[in-house]
Every structure is written in C-alpha cells, then in structure tokens.
C-alpha cells in the first residue's frame, strides 16, 4: 500500500502523571491517489495522527510507511496544509511558494514553477502581494499552492477550511476537488465536518474518542460532483451522524462526570 499506518499508539502523561491514550492501535492502508477524509469529533486524535504522517509528532509505538519509506521526520514528500495558512509574513506570495523549492532549482525555474501553481489556485495576480494583504481564503489557497509546488507524494490537510466562512469554504471545496482530479495526488484530509468529508472524499475514516480509534471505514461511491446527488449524500450523512452520536454522547457524559467530581 502507498501509505501504511501500523499499530499506532499515542499515550501522553499529563501533569498529574495520569496516562492518557490519545490513539489506540490505529491501522490504516491508503492506496495511491485516494482522497481520504479522517472524520471525528474534537479530541479523537485525528490531527495527531495526521501530524504523525507528516513526521512532526512521534508515536508511542507503531510505525508509518509512506511510499515504501518509514516516516521518521518531516520531509518534502509529504506536504502539509494547516488550519491557519502558515505563510511567512515577511515574504511575498511568490517568495512563499518558492521557499520549499529554493534548494532544488535555480531561481528562475522556481519562480516559473511558483507561477504555475499560483495559477492553479487562481492567484497569479497576487504574486507580488504580502500575505497580510490577502483574505483568509486567499491565504489558504497560497498555502495549498506552496505545498503542491514541492510535488509531494501525499498532501496532508488539517482542517484547512475550518477557519473560513461558509461561502469561501464551499468555493474552495470545488477548487480542491478540481486540483485533486488534475494532479492525482493522494490527499489525507482531516475534518470534523460530515458534509465536507462526504462532498470531497473517496473514503471516510470515522474516528471515535477517548481513546481515539477507528469506528468505521466507509467507501463513498456517490458520483461526482456530489451536489447533484443530494439524496445519496443525505442518506450517508445520516448514517455517519448515527455513528458519531454515541461518540458525542460519550464526550458529554465524560465532561458531566468530570464536573460532578470537581
């Protein structure tokens, strides 16, 4: 398999020395070119899992293999898009996109490449602007262009549209879907939005909380564009809602119990 996540556990000890299991024996296999969403309520460890694939966080046990190589540290084969655009404010849009390229090619080639990917996210007119001059949605598109420009084997996205307003998000969904079709990248997309995951992905991995486990692995075989198949989308949405209901109740009960204790 292209991405293999094998027996991943993550346990951290809090300040009272209690062991908290964030991720409990996660196993996943993701084939090349798939758009997979990891869906779950907050606190299920989905972002931690993504951060592990990126190599930014280490697992307590288990291993991750991407394209035949074991993940030990971050690398350009795995592009990451964060919830905040994470653009460097002291660089122009072009300079930001060139940042990961500057060691591999000369300046002219890098700028040419940056231009290509800025065109893909329809921002070539803003090449000379600084990030603070762009809206949140535009910044996030630059961030996507920056990740794509280094031609990663997989694009990791951590709730990339979570901080945007509804209209912008919906427009970016369309753009991302098109980019995915055009570039054939493998995309691992973390979200807590059921609609977002159904709209975009081939497959939805539903995670539950405390400890984080995979509770369902759903193949989405609704034809694209999914907006045109509202009935099937609604049915799937209801099914996932049912799966997550128990999880959300669990979180609420735990919080109530915690309050009763304190």
């Amino acid at each position, binding site marked *: 398999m292209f991405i293999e996540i094998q027996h991943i556990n993550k346990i951290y000890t809090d300040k009272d020395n209690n062991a908290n299991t964030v991720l409990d024996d996660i196993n996943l296999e993701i084939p090349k070119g798939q758009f997979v969403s990891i869906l779950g309520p907050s606190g299920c460890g989905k972002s931690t899992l993504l951060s592990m694939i*990126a*190599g*930014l966080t280490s697992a307590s046990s288990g291993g991750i293999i991407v394209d035949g190589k074991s993940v030990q*540290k*971050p*690398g*350009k084969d*795995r*592009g*990451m898009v*964060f919830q*905040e655009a*994470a653009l*460097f*404010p*002291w660089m122009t849009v072009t300079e930001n996109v060139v*940042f*990961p390229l500057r*060691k591999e090619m000369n300046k002219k080639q890098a700028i040419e490449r940056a231009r290509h990917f800025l065109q893909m996210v329809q921002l070539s007119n803003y090449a000379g602007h*600084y*990030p*603070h001059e762009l809206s949140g949605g535009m910044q996030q598109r630059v961030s996507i262009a*920056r990740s794509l420009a*280094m031609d990663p084997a997989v694009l990791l996205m951590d709730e990339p549209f979570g901080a945007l307003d509804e209209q912008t998000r919906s427009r970016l969904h369309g753009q991302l879907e098109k980019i995915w079709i055009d570039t054939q990248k493998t995309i691992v997309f973390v979200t807590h939005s059921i609609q977002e995951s159904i709209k975009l992905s081939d497959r939805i991995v539903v995670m539950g909380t405390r400890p984080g486990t995979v509770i369902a692995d759903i193949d989405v075989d609704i034809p694209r564009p999914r907006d045109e198949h509202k009935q099937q989308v609604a049915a799937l949405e209801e099914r996932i809602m049912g799966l997550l209901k128990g999880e959300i109740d669990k979180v609420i009960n735990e919080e109530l119990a915690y309050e009763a204790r304190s």
Partner: protein
Amino acid sequence: MKPAVKRLIFFTALILFWGLGSHFEFWHETILPSPFSVWDALVAGFADLTLVYDLVASFRRLFIGLAVSLLIGTALGILLARSKTADETIGSMVLALQSVPSIIWLPLAMMWFGLGEGAIIFVVILGGTFVMTLNVRTGIKNVNPLYIKAARTMGSNGIDLFWKVIIPASIPYLVTGARLAWAFAWRALMAGELLSAGPGLGYTLRYASDFGNMALVIGVMIIIGVVGAVVDQLIFQRIEKNVLKRWGLES
C-alpha cells in the same frame, strides 16, 4: 484638525508664554533666560561651529557605541535563546545589568580606558547592549510554532530553519530592541559626556553651566530633546510601524 497643526499651536503657545513671562519678569533672566537669549545662544553656537563640532562628536560616539551594542546584543540574545544553560546563568546576569543605569560604569571605565573617547563609548555600549539582548531573546523564543512546523514540512531544518525562518520571524522584536537600545544609548551618552572631556553636547552643557551661561544650557537641552524625538519618531517608530504591519501584528 491635523496632529501636526495641534502640535504647532501647542509649541507656539508654550514659547509665547515663556517669552511673556520673561518679558514681564515673572522670573529672573539668570534663573530662566528668555527664548530670545536661548535663540541667540544657539545662533552664536552654530555660527562659531562649537555646536556643530559637538553634534559631530556626540553622533560619532553614539554610532560606534550603538553599532557595537546592537552586534553584541544580537549575538548574546541568540545565545540566550538557543542555550538553556546560558539563559539560566548569563541570562540572570543580563537581567541584573539591565536594571542599572550604565553610567555607574563610568568610574571603572575611566580607570580602564582613560578620560577620553574609550570610556564614554564603553558606557554607551553598555547602555544599549542589554535591552537589545533581552529583546532578541524574547523575539526568538516567541516565534510562532506554526511557522517552524510549516518550514519543517518543507524540508527546512537546522541552520537553514534558523536563518530563513526564526530570525526573520523575530524581526519585529529586533526592531523594538534597536529602538530601545538607541534610547538607552542616547541617555548614556549624554550622562557620560557631562562627566568627561569635550567636545560633545553633554560637555558643552556642563561647560556652559560652569560659566553661568544658562541660555546655552537650555539651548543644548533643546538640541538633545529634539534629536532624541526626531530619531525616535522619524526613524525608529516609522520602521517599527512598517514592520508590524508587514508581519501582520497590527492591522
């Protein structure tokens, strides 16, 4: 009304009040000379070039001292930010040194470097260094972790990460540090010059005082104040504002 117009009216009124007070002898000329006497003293000082030499001499010391203090301050700040041991040892000493006015080093500096340039420049350097050090340290420690994470996923690490991401990200703190270092160095310079040989604005101030030339004393005080305000507002605050805007820290 524009702030500049308001300011103009305010200062005109102030000088008018001062002039009228002198004219009607609310205070004696030896206690507070009239604005005309101060003006005459300034004109005379510039005409015979003493004040020009003073300005040149003071600025020379300031530039040397400030440049050295910014270099040492930056280097020391980087060291404190990167090494926990250095921070826990040298860092506590820097905090202590920062809390004392650098002029108290002058007696020692005079023993080491004699009564001339060396001692004053030493005091100026000490005046600027520690505030720069602390700002550089804070700047590097406060770099948004997201920038570092993002840079690492783009294949940057070690020295490249430090120079291409961490240092640029802390520029706003560096600029603030430089501005404060200038302010401290300017004060240290004036104190040092008051207590040593000329030429220099501080020296001329004391010289005028010794000869009872209060008009020149006030004239030099005005020069010191104007230089301080102009450099701070026209140079440093402007740079700081631009940087904060660019770095997205101010909308």
